[in-house]
């Protein structure tokens, strides 16, 4: 078969009528500086052997700033050689003084493994005995002691630091006494609840370091977000220098927005994004062009994978197209990564697992199934395509979700807007108290000591009253037999997790996962269909008291969707913006959540094919919320419908503006709010105590409001559709009314 070149395919794509926006990114030349004079001869030799003869400007600046004793945050796009930003100063320091130690933190074990291999290749070229080890749950007990005593570079994750290293710091004396650098890679992943926890873990780390007399510098690297410096400073509690003078070269990039054709005009239903992705990917793959396809869920990955393998099996053979997602074994992943680098694998279908810095080389084409959810995430995925020289193409195929439609129809929003800010709230009281307990366990607290920027005397006193701490001559001592870190997980929304037990095989009952309590109410109730790594399980029994869900593997044609009855009570109003007809408030609320019924929904047609009750106790959380209220005593009948529509739109828009997951913020509307009796929409942080999302919405309300209105306005439907405010009735003019309603705030 005669193969088309990438340029020819680009030319064809330009003519496609479904392409609604075409954006070109100009190529850039490399910007380099010679290796600094100060670099140790052996390190210089090792770099030469790896064909590094000079440094990109950002690597050079990073090295120089660290030499000056500054903490740095390097913001670098994918494949710009970010690892040298930290490996260079770290190896230099150890070459100068062999007692020096460094701690590397990666958000996942897989990334830590990758980094170790890369680092060891570089070390092997140096003539110095530098020991670098990963330290995680998989590290065998026999070498743990060696890692603790002799590891120059210890590579781990925040969870391990929290639960194993810090609580046992007396076994790590040689690390903490000599710690020179703390490296935090993939900084942008530390946001929301997880980031708020990690910021506190780092406060504890700094406390332990100062006990042992070390004052390490921080070296962070981050993907492009709006506030890398601010996030790094919040996370580490140290002033940062921002390094963003990227000197890596790049070729020409075409960024294409593709909107599948409408197949049902009145209902504004479009052809499915998946089908369009299959077709587009096939065109590239059959012409032997290396392509990565992103999908938003694990199930979706498997579906697209099997379609594409089928479509191109004659031309390229199924072995050359692979899937990649969480749940694959580490060896399998390593093989796929290597296959992509070597070019043995032509195509890969992945979840956002490949967004992170795993090295797979540079591909020519990236196809996204739907908008990835945030500007930052989109750029991360787009970064997978793009060689240092030559052209590359990124195609984003829009789904029917309101946000997808909004993005592709408002290209300026995407291309001109800064990526989102990553927000954390280390001062969330629950998170803070958790970590204060861990900190007091690790080292007695001085009465006058602060924890990060916080005065914590009140909390310490509270913990003394709770009989967890003991006060004696100016110090608070841990005085409980428990081990606090073991109760506290950095990654879950609520502290107490429900364990998922698979009892498909009586002889081999095993735990397959865990879930936070609040999510479990809607996803693990009796008879729920729970999806885990593409496999369907049915929940046979949710043992709420013991926090266990017993599941069994099934093969059914439906999924389940639970309804929650949510009640909100306003506890305290902190801030208010009054308008003539409305008001926007920010404050504390109590949320009572009671799951009521679940529906069985057929997978192919989304028909409702049955339902059942859920009997679980009510949950109560106190959190922060922002709420919009309209001063109308006697609202017209259709208002309830409109409120729901606006709430729906806000729930889609807010996560993009606050860079959180859709499940981190909840939206609910009340036609007669309990505390005032007037129409109200609440947006609240789905985490006890709040993590700063509602506050952010309050501060940037104008921006959020405008985005919501734009979304409704630009939706091509006539009278509301599932992609915006939902279906309206005849003569109701729901779109116009929704926009007006928002205008009043």
């Amino acid at each position, binding site marked *: 078969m005669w193969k088309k070149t990438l340029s020819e395919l680009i030319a064809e794509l330009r003519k496609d009528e479904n392409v609604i926006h075409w954006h070109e990114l100009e190529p850039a030349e490399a910007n380099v500086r010679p290796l600094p004079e100060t670099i140790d001869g052996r390190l210089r030799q090792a770099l030469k052997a790896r064909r590094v003869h000079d440094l990109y400007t950002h690597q050079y600046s990073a090295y120089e700033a660290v030499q000056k004793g500054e903490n740095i945050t390097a913001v670098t796009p994918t494949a710009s050689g970010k690892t040298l930003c930290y490996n260079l100063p770290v190896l230099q320091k150890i070459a100068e003084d062999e007692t020096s130690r460094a701690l590397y933190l990666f958000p996942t074990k897989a990334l830590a493994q990758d980094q170790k291999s890369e680092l060891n290749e570089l070390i092997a070229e140096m003539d110095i005995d530098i020991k670098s080890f990963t330290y995680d749950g998989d590290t065998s007990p026999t070498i743990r002691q060696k890692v603790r005593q002799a590891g120059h570079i210890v590579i781990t994750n925040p969870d391990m630091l929290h639960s194993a290293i810090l*609580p*046992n*710091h*007396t*076994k790590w*004396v040689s690390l903490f006494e000599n710690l020179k650098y703390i490296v935090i890679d993939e900084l942008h992943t530390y946001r929301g609840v997880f980031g708020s926890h990690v910021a506190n873990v780092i406060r504890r780390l700094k406390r332990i370091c100062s006990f042992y007399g070390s004052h390490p510098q921080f070296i962070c690297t981050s993907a492009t977000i709006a506030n890398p410096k601010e996030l790094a400073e919040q996370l580490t509690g140290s002033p940062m220098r921002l390094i963003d003078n990227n000197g890596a070269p790049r070729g020409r990039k075409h960024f294409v927005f593709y909107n599948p054709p409408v197949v049902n005009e009145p209902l504004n239903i479009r052809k499915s994004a998946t089908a369009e992705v299959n077709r587009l990917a096939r065109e590239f793959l059959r012409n032997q062009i290396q392509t990565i396809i992103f999908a938003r869920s694990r199930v979706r990955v498997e579906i697209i994978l099997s379609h594409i393998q089928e479509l191109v099996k004659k031309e390229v053979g199924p072995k050359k197209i692979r899937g990649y997602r969480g749940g694959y074994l580490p060896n399998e992943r390593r093989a796929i990564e290597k296959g992509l680098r070597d070019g043995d694998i032509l195509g890969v279908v992945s979840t956002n697992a490949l967004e992170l810095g795993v090295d797979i080389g540079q591909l020519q084409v990236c196809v996204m199934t739907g908008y990835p959810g945030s500007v930052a995430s989109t750029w991360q995925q787009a970064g997978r395509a793009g060689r240092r020289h030559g052209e590359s193409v990124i195609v984003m195929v829009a789904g029917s979700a309101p946000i997808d439609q909004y993005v592709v129809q408002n290209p300026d929003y995407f291309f001109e807007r800064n990526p989102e800010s990553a927000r954390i709230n280390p001062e969330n*009281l*629950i998170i803070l*108290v*958790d970590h204060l*307990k861990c900190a*007091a*366990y*690790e*080292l*007695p607290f001085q009465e006058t000591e602060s924890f990060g920027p916080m005065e914590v005397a*009140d*909390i310490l006193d*509270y913990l*003394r*009253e*709770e*009989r*967890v701490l*003991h*006060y*004696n*001559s100016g*110090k608070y*001592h*841990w*005085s*409980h*037999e*428990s*081990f*606090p*870190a073991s*109760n*506290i997980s950095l990654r879950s929304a*609520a*502290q107490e997790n429900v364990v998922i037990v698979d009892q498909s095989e009586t002889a081999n009952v095993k735990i397959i996962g865990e879930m936070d309590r609040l999510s479990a109410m809607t996803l693990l109730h009796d008879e729920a269909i729970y999806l885990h790594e593409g496999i369907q399980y049915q929940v046979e029994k949710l043992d709420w008291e013991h926090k266990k869900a017993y599941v069994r593997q099934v093969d059914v044609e439906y999924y389940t969707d639970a309804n929650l009855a949510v009640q909100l009570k306003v*506890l*305290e109003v902190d801030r208010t913006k009054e308008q003539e007809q409305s008001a926007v408030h920010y404050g*504390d609320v109590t949320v009572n959540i009671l799951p009521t019924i679940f529906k069985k929904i057929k997978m192919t047609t989304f028909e409702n094919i049955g339902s059942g009750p859920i009997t679980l106790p009510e949950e*109560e*959380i*106190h959190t922060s919320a922002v709420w919009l209220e309209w001063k109308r005593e006697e609202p017209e009948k259709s208002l309830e419908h409109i409120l729901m529509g606006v709430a729906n739109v806000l729930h889609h828009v807010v996560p993009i503006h606050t860079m959180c997951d859709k499940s981190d913020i909840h939206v609910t509307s009340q036609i007669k709010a309990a505390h005032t009796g007037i129409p109200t929409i609440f947006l609240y942080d789905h985490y*006890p*105590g709040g993590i700063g999302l509602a506050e952010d919405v309050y501060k940037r309300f104008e921006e959020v409001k405008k985005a919501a209105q734009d979304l409704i306005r630009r939706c091509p439907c006539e009278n509301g559709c599932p992609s915006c405010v939902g279906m309206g009735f005849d003569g109701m003019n729901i779109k116009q009314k929704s926009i007006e309603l928002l205008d009043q705030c």
Partner: protein
Amino acid sequence: MSMAKKLQRLKKHIVREEPPAPKIEAPKAIRFWEAWEAAGAELFEFDGEYCITRETHYDIETAHGLYTFQDAQKTIGQWSSFEGYHPLSAKGFATSDLFFFDIETTGLSGSGSVIFLLGTARIHNSRVTVRQYFLPSPGNEAALYAKFLQETDYTTLVTYNGKSFDWPQVKSRHTFVRDKVPALPAFGHFDLYHASRRLFKHTMESVKLVNVEKEHLGLERINDVPGHLAPIIYFDFVERGDPEGVLEVMKHNERDILSLITLYTHISRLVLDQKGPADSQTALEVGKWFEASGNRAAAKKSFEQSARSTETEVALDAAYRLAMQHKREKSFEEAAALFQRVRQAEGKRAVEAAVELAKMYEHKWKDIPKSLQETSWALEQNLKNEGVKSALEHRLQRLQKKLSK
């Protein structure tokens, strides 16, 4: 909203430490000092901190379980005439050099778990002296360790699982006060837990000290505070200051330490006794222990003794091990006779014995038919280990080839 108000509101979301520890308040003076004094306690002050110590003496003729402390003294003295290496050998030490040692803590692991009681016992000047060092509340650790380190020779500790529990805990806590008290040197010690596992685990479900006491030392605990209650009792003391419960824990700790003297005596006797332990199983375990420590001469003696009894699996195991020792010493005739015995009895080790015989016939005595006979016999047995099986098949082929030449 005020911090205090917020904390109250979020109370149920903050992870609670269950069960709640007793309410704690800082003592102005030492409360209940009369009770302490009545129990023979003394105060030690150091650098603005203090700890409570207690010394108890026992006459050398006092019996604790099977033996008196005098027996202990005698047995420990007997190590001086012991030849070769043994992990428990006290050769070169005076009886009074040994410190029998045990601690009580507020938790099992981690830097936040505190040692609140250290106890030692020492046989000295015709009596046994028990010394206990008690932490009256967190924040007095410098005093605790200063006093303990001043009075204890930590190069010769005798413990129960001290290698992996007690000593690492001491090291961990010492890190917190290392600027104020002497450094901790490397320590040497005898760990009786490992010794007990070697000798008793084949007959006991759990080799916890209490169980060993009951089974082997003729000791029964009456009114003893279970060790797992110690943390709760301690936290209660820190709150209320009444030493009643703590004194019970101290009694428990003292019993533990005294039992270590009896246990050390008992195990030493099993190892040192010229006639060896009466039962063939213990003799085998003692022999294996010598074998693992590289003391072959002593191992042989124990195996001989164990192999003396009739054809039980234990005796056959001992005979096999003894044969291996002979083979190593190139006493092939003795080795072959023992391997024959094991092979004939057709017990668990018969195949291994046959393999050894086949090797010796083939290489030592060049008796191919006999070697072939042993090999074929071994192959007829129900072999579960594929490696053994394929090695035997390989040997069979080689022997057949040799025979046909």
